[in-house]
């Protein structure tokens, strides 16, 4: 029920992000979700791609420092209040969100959210019990 996210270490300097996206572009890799967190010195680019294995092989060859983390993707109705409801589910279950970001989707009437939490199993359990749909990896491939 989880989705593989690739997190990449990038220096916070002009051109570093472009150098990275160029590799994806040249290898025909499509990004499904993307978020960037930064400090003054470095950033962490978090992304979900259509081919995690191919991407990680490429990154290894290019000498990037990266990690693969299992995150949760959920589908919520594309209307006011639905994100709040999903977050309240986690809050009520005492599950802390480390970070989260939104994803574009072609599914009509739906928005996808990515959650990074300490306890995936507990979060999946809380979401499903409350009728929030958790999405699998194959939906991104």
């Amino acid at each position, binding site marked *: 029920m989880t989705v593989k*996210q690739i*997190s990449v*270490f*990038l*220096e916070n300097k002009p051109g*570093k992000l472009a150098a990275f996206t160029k590799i994806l572009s040249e290898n025909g890799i499509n990004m499904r979700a993307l978020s960037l*967190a*930064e*400090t003054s*010195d*470095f950033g*962490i680019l*978090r992304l979900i791609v259509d081919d995690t294995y191919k991407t990680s092989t490429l990154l290894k060859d290019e*000498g*990037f*420092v*990266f*990690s693969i*983390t299992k995150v949760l993707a959920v589908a919520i109705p594309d209307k006011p209040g639905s994100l709040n409801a999903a977050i309240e589910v986690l809050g009520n279950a005492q599950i802390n969100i*480390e*970070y989260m970001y939104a994803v574009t989707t072609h599914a009509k009437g739906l928005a996808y959210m990515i959650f*990074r939490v300490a306890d995936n199993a507990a979060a999946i359990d809380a979401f499903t019990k409350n009728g929030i749909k958790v999405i699998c990896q194959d939906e991104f491939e």
Partner: protein
Amino acid sequence: MEHYYQPEIECASREQIRAWQDERLVKQVQNVWDHVPYYRKKMEEKGVTPADIQSTADLHKLPFLTKEDLREAYPYGLLARPLEDCVRIQSTSGTTGRRVVAFYTQHDLDLWEECCARAIMAAGGTKNDVCHVCYGYGLFTGGPGLNGGSHKVGCLTLPMSSGNTERQIQFMCDLGSTILCCTPSYAAYLAESILERGLQDKIKLKAGIFGAEAWTEEMRRDIEEKLGIKAYDIYGLTEISGPGVSFECSAQTGMHINEDHFIAEIINPQTGEVLPDGEKGELVFTSITKEAFPLLRYRTRDICVLTREKCSCGRTHVKMSKPMGRSDDMLIVKGVNVFPSQIETVLMNNGYPANYQILVDRVNNSDTIEVQVEMTPEMFSDSISQITAKERELVSDLKAMLGIYAQVKLVAPKTITRSEGTAVRVIDKRNLYKN
């Protein structure tokens, strides 16, 4: 008019100085042989006995002492007097990994303070002056040395210690400080702060005695202009006594070494061979009057030149140039001794790779040090907070090791140049050693 603290010594004939040195060296060698087994063993290994040392001409026969010896003999191995005769301990600044402790008898303190008194009077100090000491007090020799010297001269002494710039400036204005003693970078910072507050007309400073770190002629002129003073250099090291081993006079063309207490030599740092006056090499000191901690032929690692030309100030003691560099990899940052090996140790202990680079710079006349480390898969995480927590831990461990704040910067793998042979670990952008 030139002031002297001890004119009969400071302006003695070269023959007289030589006679003092010969007599004191012979006695000191015997004293060390009798009371310091660590050095006696070194002499025996070299096949030298006190009988071989009849005058300063024989000095070159004695073995060298290095900082490594001081570490090995830590804490009491080089002590020549029983502890009950000692009254003070001082220690080198902030270098946990290489801390060196030095011991003093009351007599040692008196002589050290006299050396500082000579420096203060050479800078124009008299008993009518207010001497503002903002070197650190404590284990660091800066504060205690100048404080003692100021007392000997009879100045009204302000034992300010370092920090709290507001209070420094306030006291300077309210109490009419005339002589400022601190590191040159702090003097430059004070000068800026005084100008910013528009208080330049409220201060009465006439001279500054600045040491414990390298500084350039440009910096001297800058400080002199901003504060309207004459800025004098002072040199020293804890191992030999502290500040006042040598000091600048009105000529401002090098520092007179107090040769009645310290014999200076210049050696080739590779071969150990003694070099003639005027040649650049490593400075070596022999303490001939110290009682508690008498070091013979101690290698300072400072590179400089000695000159015995007649000085316009009337002093006859040999002059040393400002240090022009180091014969080891030690850096002096904010007046604190930093060795790259200490930084490497902290990195390894924290699981970082040994591939690092140290960037030293001077921003607004204050030293900065940045340690660049390459990110590794082991250290990486998808969470910024986890990475920064590790970074903070590293900063705190570096602070504990070095005694000063060092910024840490995580960089991408393989971005730090791997040179063939010796790695370029240190980039010092300060350009302090201009030849």
